[in-house]
C-alpha cells in the first residue's frame, strides 16, 4: 500500500470513529440522557452550594474549639481534607450510578434491527463501531465527571481557601471504574440487547464489590476452606469499585498505606476480558 493511500485510509478511519462518537453525544442529547446527567449533577452542585453557605472554616473552628493559631491552621486543613475525602467518595458513588443508568440504553439502541444492518454496511469494522460507541459513552461521562467534581472542587476551594488538587483524582478514578463497568454494559448489550439487564448487572457488581471487599473480616468468619477460596476468588475477579473508592479517599488524606495499584490492574484485566468477549461476540453475531 502506498503511503498516500495509507494516510487517506487512516484519515477515513479517524473520521468514522469521530462520527460514531459524535453520534453517541447526539443520541444522548436527543434522549435527554445528556441533559438528565448534567441536570442532576447541577442539582448536586446546587445542594452543595447551599450546604456551603454554612461557613465551613468558621464552623470547623467553633466545632473543634481550637484556640491556638498554628494548631488551628493545621487542624482546619485536616478537617477540610477529611471533608474533601468524603465528598469525593459521595461523588464517586453518585457519579458512577448515574453514569451507568445514563449509558445503559446507548449500546442496545445501536443494535436495533434496521439500524444495525445499515451501520454494518459501511466500510468500517465491527470493532470500530462498538469501540466508537464505547468511547462516546466514556467521553460523555468524563465530561460530566469533570463538570461535577471540578465544580465542587472550585466551590470548596473558594469557600475555604484550601485548594487540594488530590481531590481531583476523583475524576480519573470515577471515569476509570465507569469505563470498566461500561464493558459489562457493552457485553450484556451485545448478548441480550437489553438496557435494563445491563443496569441490573452493573449496579449489582458495584454492590457485590462492596461486600466482597470485606474479605479480611469475612474470611475469618467462614469455616470451610472452599467458601473462603470462593470468596477470595470472587473478590479478585469482580471489579474493585469499593477498593478504588477507599484508595481514593486515602490518597486525599495523604495516607501512605493507600493501595490503588492492585484495584486498578485487577479491574483493568476484568474490563479488558469482558470487552474482548463483547467484541468477539459482536463480530460473530448475525444481524
Amino acid at each position, binding site marked *: 500500500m502506498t503511503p498516500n493511500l495509507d494516510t487517506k485510509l487512516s484519515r*477515513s478511519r479517524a*473520521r*468514522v470513529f*469521530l*462520527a*460514531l462518537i*459524535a*453520534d453517541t453525544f*447526539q*443520541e444522548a*442529547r*436527543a*434522549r435527554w440522557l445528556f441533559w438528565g446527567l448534567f441536570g442532576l449533577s447541577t442539582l448536586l452542585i446546587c445542594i452543595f452550594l447551599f450546604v456551603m453557605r454554612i461557613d465551613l472554616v468558621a464552623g470547623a473552628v467553633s466545632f473543634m474549639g481550637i484556640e491556638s493559631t498554628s494548631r488551628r491552621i493545621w487542624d482546619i486543613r485536616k478537617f477540610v481534607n477529611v471533608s474533601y475525602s468524603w465528598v469525593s467518595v459521595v461523588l464517586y458513588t453518585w457519579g458512577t450510578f448515574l453514569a451507568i443508568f445514563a449509558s445503559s440504553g446507548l449500546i442496545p439502541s445501536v443494535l*436495533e*434491527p*434496521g*439500524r*444495525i*444492518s*445499515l*451501520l*454494518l*454496511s*459501511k*466500510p*468500517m*469494522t465491527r470493532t*470500530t463501531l462498538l469501540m466508537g460507541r464505547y468511547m462516546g459513552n466514556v467521553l460523555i461521562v468524563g465530561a460530566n465527571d469533570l463538570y461535577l467534581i471540578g465544580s465542587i472542587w472550585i466551590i470548596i476551594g473558594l469557600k475555604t481557601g484550601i485548594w487540594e488538587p488530590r481531590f481531583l483524582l476523583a475524576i480519573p478514578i470515577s471515569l476509570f471504574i465507569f469505563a470498566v463497568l461500561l464493558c459489562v454494559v457493552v457485553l450484556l448489550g451485545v448478548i441480550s440487547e437489553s438496557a435494563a439487564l445491563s443496569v441490573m448487572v452493573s449496579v449489582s457488581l458495584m454492590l457485590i464489590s462492596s461486600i466482597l471487599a470485606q474479605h479480611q473480616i469475612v474470611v475469618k468468619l467462614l469455616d470451610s476452606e472452599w467458601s473462603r477460596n470462593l470468596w477470595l476468588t470472587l473478590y479478585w475477579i469482580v471489579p474493585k469499585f469499593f477498593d478504588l473508592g477507599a484508595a481514593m479517599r486515602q490518597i486525599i488524606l495523604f495516607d501512605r498505606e493507600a493501595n490503588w495499584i492492585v484495584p486498578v490492574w485487577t479491574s483493568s484485566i476484568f474490563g479488558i476480558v469482558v470487552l474482548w468477549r463483547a467484541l468477539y461476540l459482536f463480530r*460473530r*453475531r*448475525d*444481524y
Partner: protein
Amino acid sequence: MAQDYAIEAVGLEKIYRPRFRGRSIKAIADLTLRVPVGVKFGLLGANGAGKTTFVKTLLGAVNQSAGSATLFGRDTREAEARRPVGYLPENHRFPTYFTGTGMLDFYAALSGLESRERRRRIPALLESVGLKDWGDVRIKKYSKGMLQRLGLAQALIHRPRLLILDEPTDGVDPVGRRDIREALNALTDTGVTVFINSHLLSEVETFCEYVAILNRGELALEGKMSHLLAGRGYRIAATNVPEQAFEGIRLAGGAVVEGGGNLGSDLEIRIATREEANAVIDRIRAAGGFIESVVATTSSLEDVFIRTTEAEKAA
C-alpha cells in the same frame, strides 16, 4: 484491475444455528451467482427464500457459513469491500433525532467522505430526491415515502459503484416511484451497478436487465430478463377437435390443453416451443380440427416467477 463482476458468490452457504436448542436453518444453500458490472439486476424470491440473508451476507451483517462472496473482487468479510457500496435496507430505522441533513452527514462520514465534500453533496442530493426544503426538519416528521427517498440519498451520498436496494419503492407514491426509477436509470448510464431485492415483480420487470429467483435458499432461475420473458410460448385456439385427440396433443409436446377456450374456439392450447406448436397443429389437423388462431405469447415476470417456484415446490 478491471473487475467483471460487481457481485460474485460461489457456493455460498448460510446456516442459522440456534443459540441453545432447536433446529438449524439453512437460509442459503450452495448459491453461485454473478452480477456483471454496470447492469440492473433484480433478485426475487418468496418470503423466506433467503434474499435478505444473501444481501446481508454481501454487506457483512450476516456471517457466511461456507463458500465465498466478493464485491468487485474483494472478499465481503473485509470492511473495505463495502466502500464502493450504497445500501438501502428494507424496514430501515434511521435514528429519529437526526434532521435530513444531519442523517446524510453522519452516514456520509461513515462512508469516509470529507466534511467539505459532504457539505457540497448533501444539498444537491436532497434536491435530487425532492427533499430540498426538508433538510433541517427532524426525520421523525417525515412520511414513509420521504424516509425512503432520504434513504436512497443516503445510499448515493458517497457515489457508490454498486447500489444494493431492498424494496426501494416501498411506501413511495407512483410519481415518486417513477422519479426513483429515472434516477436509477441515470445512475446505470454512468456505469453504476444496481442490485434490487424486491417483491414488486412488475417493477423489477420494468427496470431490471437481469433477474435471479431464489427458492428456499437455492438459485432456482437466473438470466437476462429479455430471454426469460420473450418467446416463452404459443397459444393456439382450435375448434372441432375430437376428445380422443387430446392425449395425442399432450404427447406432441407436453402442450397444455384447456377446454372452453376463447376466440370462438372449443380449445385453448398453450405450448412452450415453436417445434411443439407445429407438432400440436399437425395433430389437431390430422384429427379433423380447425385452427382458429396461433399467437406467440410472452410471459410476464409473474408467470416466470410462479412457474419457477411451483416447479421447485413440485420437485
